[in-house]
């Protein structure tokens, strides 16, 4: 593989600001980005990525690779938690195993966005429908996670206040990040179809600012991720290993599926990143509410403290190299 890709990624502003945030915590600076500023950027990024994806989806339509790719993505968000659970159950109780499994079945929007930025600097094209895949991978993973809990610990679960399926489904499909992403995607679609004149008026906000806002947000993510490093001691070597090796394995599976789907290298990278990334937004919040028996430090510190930095620093260029090696259309 090409080591310059990794270097190239390391010196991009988003990754450098992520490092700056990590460094702030490691050296003991009092730099902090107080709530709700990170929420503002998080809402903005979801809105902008959804809107842009919708615009592009309107142009590409639902033909060709679109539906098979989305279906494959959703299948991965069901499959990954299942085999992750089997691995995790060897060392952890059912609650924690299910919660972490769900986390890895879902996706990290920021990793996806960082991969898009990486592709842009590489001048590799990708399609808007990948955002639809992104949006549709969060809910299945949450549902599988909760099914696993019900299977693994049906009696204990019954002890708590009744948590009806309606609230579980609401949490899966209507949690704020899924809802905003899907909603903005739909708006992008509608606007591209019926109000194309207003697209140009949106772009300074949704498009031009995007890269800078991502960099700013990653500064905060660096701070938060580094604060989680302490929790890793609690997680132990098994979980740390899991949070590097499982993404690598998922990336390999993803690459092979992308090859089967005949995706170009840009879409293939995004597909692989969806498979390899773990959620630290929708899923932890859902698990905190629906599986309070699981320890949040475990699923948050693995997804945010290990897998997320691994993916944006090393993973993205590594997966690109993997794709170049394994995809006939790439390299």
């Amino acid at each position, binding site marked *: 593989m090409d080591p310059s890709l990794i270097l190239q990624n390391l010196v991009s502003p988003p990754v450098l600001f992520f490092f700056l945030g990590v460094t702030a915590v490691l050296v003991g600076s009092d730099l902090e980005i*107080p*709530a*709700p500023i*990170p*929420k503002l*950027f*998080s809402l903005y990024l979801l809105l902008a990525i959804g809107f842009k994806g919708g615009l592009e989806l309107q142009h590409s339509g639902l033909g060709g690779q679109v539906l098979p790719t989305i279906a494959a993505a959703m299948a991965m968000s069901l499959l990954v938690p299942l085999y992750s659970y089997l691995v995790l159950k060897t060392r952890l109780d059912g609650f924690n195993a299910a919660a972490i499994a769900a986390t890895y079945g879902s996706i990290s929007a920021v990793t996806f966005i960082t991969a898009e930025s990486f592709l842009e600097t590489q001048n590799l094209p990708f399609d808007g429908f990948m955002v639809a895949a992104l949006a549709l991978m969060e809910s299945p993973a949450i549902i599988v996670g909760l099914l696993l809990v019900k299977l693994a610990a049906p009696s204990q679960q019954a*002890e*708590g*206040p009744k948590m009806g399926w309606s609230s579980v489904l609401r949490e899966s499909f209507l*949690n*704020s*990040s899924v809802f905003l992403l899907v909603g903005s995607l739909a708006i992008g679609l509608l606007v591209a179809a019926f109000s194309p004149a207003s697209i140009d008026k949106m772009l300074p906000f949704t498009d031009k600012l995007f890269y800078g806002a991502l960099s700013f947000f990653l500064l*905060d993510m660096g*701070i*938060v991720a580094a*604060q989680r490093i302490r929790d890793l001691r609690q997680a132990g070597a098994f979980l740390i290993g899991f949070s590097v090796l499982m993404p690598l394995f998922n990336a390999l599976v993803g690459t092979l599926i992308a090859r089967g789907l005949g995706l170009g290298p840009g879409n293939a990278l995004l597909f692989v990143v969806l498979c390899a990334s773990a959620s*630290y*937004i*929708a899923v*932890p*919040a859902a698990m*905190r*509410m629906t599986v*309070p028996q699981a*320890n*949040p*430090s475990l699923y*948050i510190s693995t997804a945010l403290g290990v897998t997320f930095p691994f993916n944006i620093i090393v993973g993205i260029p590594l997966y690109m190299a993997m794709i170049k090696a394994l995809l006939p259309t790439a390299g």
Partner: protein
Amino acid sequence: MKRLELILSERELDAVIQAMEIAGVPGYSVVRHVTGKGPHGSVSEGMEFSGLGANAHVIVFCEADLLDALRAALRPLLTYYGGVAYVTDAEAL
């Protein structure tokens, strides 16, 4: 009069308020963005952007005879999800 105060995760706030209203509290006040530490570990606001939230501080002034109903309604929630609830004496100014 009694002063009941609860500290619990923001995610369970709606359930707790609903339980209190059914128990018949005359009113309540809520401060969000509360951080802290308890038997279940530390709670910070660092993950607020993810919807995970911090804790909420709930204050209720009510007659002493409402406490039993409140205890019955709130204990299961606090036991299952975590959080603390304490009562002090209070008199209207």
